[in-house]
């Protein structure tokens, strides 16, 4: 990771990677969505509404992965003082918040025909909503710190503390058995039939690539803005 501490070296790598992530992400996401909407059979219990899974599950994963990225960046910033860590954390937050919001909204839409309700204060739903608010707090805190010329240490501490919510989200369906179903996909296998499941890896990888592209684009924007600010400061002093 420290090999990428040099912004010039990072940008040399980030430019082609951004384009590739966008291309692969678009192809896999569109392919997975098309397959999920047209090529798979309806579920015997949920019927056609099971198709919401192909966007809901990747957004749930990315909502959580975004905060894992923030926590890793925060640790890297506080412990190893990696110069790009704060930039990476700030870049991951809007993408993570967007996918957490998609997860909440699509879950609510899925809940109405399946459970008969748009919302329930169930452990999984509530902890996911908390994650969305944590993102908003992180974005506001990081922006305020940056405006004051800070290094982003307070936002980094917040990013690490907020990671406590991740295992709560993951285990919520085991700790509190309420409305949300238990784990259907784990490392051990899946309880979903393969005839329905197969487009899910396409959208999972596709949306993950798009998430990565969004983060890299935000990092590039932040580095360019920092370059302009530094130049303006130098011109101001001259």
């Amino acid at each position, binding site marked *: 990771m420290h090999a990428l501490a040099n912004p010039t070296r990072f940008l040399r790598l980030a430019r082609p990677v951004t384009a590739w992530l966008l291309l692969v992400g678009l192809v896999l996401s569109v392919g997975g969505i098309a397959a999920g909407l047209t090529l798979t059979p309806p579920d015997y219990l949920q019927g056609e509404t099971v198709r919401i899974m192909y966007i809901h599950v990747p957004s749930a994963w990315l909502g959580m992965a975004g905060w894992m990225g923030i926590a890793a960046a925060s640790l890297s910033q506080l412990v190893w003082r990696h110069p790009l860590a704060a930039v990476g954390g700030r870049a991951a937050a809007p993408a993570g918040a967007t996918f957490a919001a998609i997860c909440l*909204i699509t879950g609510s839409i899925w809940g109405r025909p399946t459970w008969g309700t748009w919302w329930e204060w169930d452990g999984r739903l509530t902890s996911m909503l908390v994650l969305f608010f944590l993102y908003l707090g992180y974005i506001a805190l990081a922006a305020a710190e940056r405006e004051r010329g800070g290094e982003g240490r307070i936002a980094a501490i917040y990013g690490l503390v907020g990671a406590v919510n991740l295992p709560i989200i993951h285990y919520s369906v085991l700790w509190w058995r309420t409305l949300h179903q238990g784990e259907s996909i784990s490392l051990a296998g899946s309880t979903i039939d393969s005839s329905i499941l197969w487009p899910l890896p396409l959208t999972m990888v596709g949306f993950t690539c798009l998430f990565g592209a969004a983060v890299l684009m935000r990092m590039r*924007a932040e580095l360019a803005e920092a370059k302009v600010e530094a130049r303006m400061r130098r011109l101001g002093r001259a």
Partner: protein
Amino acid sequence: MNPWPFVAAAYVVAISLTAGLLLWAYASMRRAEAAAEAISRK
């Protein structure tokens, strides 16, 4: 209950928000990189 309006609504939300995120990230990157390039040429 007809399930398709729910399926369509979920996909419209997911695609719109993802496209919005990507367009915003791309536009902010292009703007910032153009400004950085312009200032380095001065």
